[in-house]
């Protein structure tokens, strides 16, 4: 599916050099001379060094690196806030680096909007006027632009704040305004430069979720800059890791985690909290045998358990909605009492999660219960699979199986 999407942005040999003797420095760079050497010889700094990548339509493409890695310079080359020294940036079919000033203004006005780390809101304007700013620049009528801005504000959850001023709002809310301003233009591409980096961690996480929710509705092509690998892994479909103006590796979070291309990437990856990346979907095992209520009575259920050799089975109703578990010992009692329904043995107070939950999200759920975690489909309530407590603990602690069983024994003794 990924391969069928068309390419929205294509960057070819993009290079940006700061300094006065750019062409001289560029010639040296072409000869393969190092950045340090070029700085010594020409007093020019190489900000972005022959970067190549393609971004597909509807993709969230994250460019990550530490400060000074050239990532913010790179994103500014895409809308030419920084003028590239060499190389091309294709947007659909046309080359942005060759656009005249007039064409460039038009591109910025209609095709790509930007969200900034420091928000960049106008303090003398209300939230509504700020959100409508891009449309105003474009020359839209007041009524039309305010209606669009209003919708964008509703999308980011700021309904009711239209007449406030930015100074009255928290950082998180100001950035929502920044996002609304970008969305109001209805661009095909969103450029987000460290958009959430200035926010405190809880708000940051909220905004990431919000962005993902908006993205699932609007399907924009998003270029997202961050220095935070956890953030990159959470929201990026693909991630490009940048160092000293060079892109070291491009791949999905999984590819980068399992197969770091350079030492730099590896050093990054080692610092990542795996707990936040591994999701319920990767940990669960599928469960094909289920007890269905009211079809299966105690006898039928016991039979199912014996065939596959387990003492607990998940229960669903006739619409395949997950209900809970039944245990063999409870069913045996019901059989003795000659009950025909398993309802009395059904344990409904059990933990369940959606497949996007991370290990970190799931850990708190296993304390104080002996049940495996049920992974449920969000829309239907259908059981997708189960996660055993052991595999969750292994993933969370990276302990071996032996250590885990020791831990468990010790816990039981206590």
């Amino acid at each position, binding site marked *: 599916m990924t391969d069928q999407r068309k390419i929205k942005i294509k960057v070819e040999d993009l290079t940006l050099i700061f300094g006065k003797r750019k062409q001289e420095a560029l010639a040296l760079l072409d000869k393969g001379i190092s950045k340090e050497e070029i700085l010594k010889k020409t007093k020019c700094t190489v900000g972005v060094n022959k970067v190549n990548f393609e971004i597909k339509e509807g993709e969230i493409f994250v460019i990550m690196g530490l400060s000074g890695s050239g990532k913010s310079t790179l994103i500014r080359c895409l*809308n030419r*806030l920084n003028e590239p020294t060499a190389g091309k940036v294709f947007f659909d079919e046309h080359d942005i680096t060759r656009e005249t000033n007039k064409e*460039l*203004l*038009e*591109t*910025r*006005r*209609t095709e790509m*909007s*930007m969200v*900034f*780390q*420091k*928000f*960049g*809101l*106008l*303090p*003398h304007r209300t939230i509504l006027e700020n959100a409508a*700013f*891009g449309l*105003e*620049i*474009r020359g839209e009528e007041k009524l039309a632009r305010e209606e669009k801005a209003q919708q964008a504000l509703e999308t980011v959850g700021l309904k009711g704040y239209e007449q406030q001023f930015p100074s009255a709002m928290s950082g998180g809310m100001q950035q929502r305004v920044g996002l609304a*301003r970008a969305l109001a*233009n209805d661009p095909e591409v969103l*450029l987000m430069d460290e958009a959430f980096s200035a926010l405190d961690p809880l708000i940051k996480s909220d905004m990431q979720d919000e962005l993902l929710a908006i993205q699932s509705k609007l399907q924009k092509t998003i270029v997202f800059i961050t220095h935070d690998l956890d953030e990159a892994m959470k929201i990026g479909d693909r991630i490009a890791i940048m160092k000293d103006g060079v892109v070291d590796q491009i791949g999905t979070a999984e590819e980068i985690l399992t197969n770091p291309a350079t030492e730099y990437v590896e050093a990054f990856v080692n610092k990542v909290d795996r707990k936040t990346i591994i999701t319920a979907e990767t940990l669960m095992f599928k469960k094909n045998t289920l007890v269905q209520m009211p079809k299966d009575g105690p006898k039928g259920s016991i039979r199912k358990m014996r065939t596959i050799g387990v003492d607990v089975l998940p229960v669903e109703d006739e619409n395949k909605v997950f209900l809970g578990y039944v245990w063999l010992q409870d069913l045996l009692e019901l059989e003795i009492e000659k009950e025909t329904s398993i309802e009395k043995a059904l344990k409904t107070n059990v933990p369940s999660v959606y497949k996007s939950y991370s290990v970190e999200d799931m850990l708190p759920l296993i304390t104080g219960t002996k049940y495996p975690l049920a992974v449920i489909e969000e829309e239907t309530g259908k059981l997708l699979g189960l996660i055993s407590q052991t595999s969750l603990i292994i993933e969370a602690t990276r302990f071996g199986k032996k250590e885990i069983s020791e831990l468990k024994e010790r816990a039981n003794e206590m």
Partner: protein
Amino acid sequence: MEKLIDLGTIIESGINKLEENFSGLWGAIDDIISWTVHSMNNVLLGIPFYIIIAFVALGAYYANAEKNAFKIEGLKKGGGLTLFVILGLFLVFAMGYWEESIQTTTLVIVSTLIALIFSIPLGILAARSKTADVIIRPILDLMQTMPAFVYLIPAIFFFSVGNTPGVVATVIFSLPPAVRLTCLGIQNVPSDVIEAGRAFGATEKQILFKIQLPLAKPTILAGINQVILLALSMVVIASMVGAKGLGSIVYQGIQQNDIAKGFESGLGIVILAIILDRITQAIAKK
């Protein structure tokens, strides 16, 4: 001691040439300024004094009280200045200097307006172009350090005596702070806001009018306030070249060694200064 370089003579001959070659221009400027000052004086003096006092008092009240104009808080905020305006202006009237005060105010208003027509665009230019800044800055330094009286000499030369040389000298003397503060205000607009404007495809003109000028407004208004106060102080000096108003009374006081006259007219100037300053400051604070 003999002069090695006779700079004064060079400047003098330059000014002579300017006077001869552009005499039509100077005549036109003289006509326009004289006419404006004259008709504004006539209009203001045609209005009964109590209406003007009431009007200024109301202006002072609204400038301070803003949205609370009809509440107790508004009265607390704007009440003091309003009372001062009423008592102060009535005192000026009662001392018999109403006409002179109006003449002075007219000169201040005309000079300030002319100064702003030049200084704000110059300030914008200096903020946006390094070359312009490098050229304008030393000229401003010169204008501010040159003793105010020096401006009177060429002003008389071009426009003979009367209100016009007074206005021209006042404009030159009071213009620098507005240029400086406009430039400063624009340069202090955070770069991230301007970058946001660029990213959304704003033209240079849109960036100036929708971002830089609105954000620089408080600083520019502070500059305007400075211009008004400098203009007022210069108008007094300008009476030496025949500008009418409270300044000429002060001047008479000095010449006739008349303490009563000097004190009364001086007090009138102080009252005007306080009123103009407080009202413009209140507007700038909004």
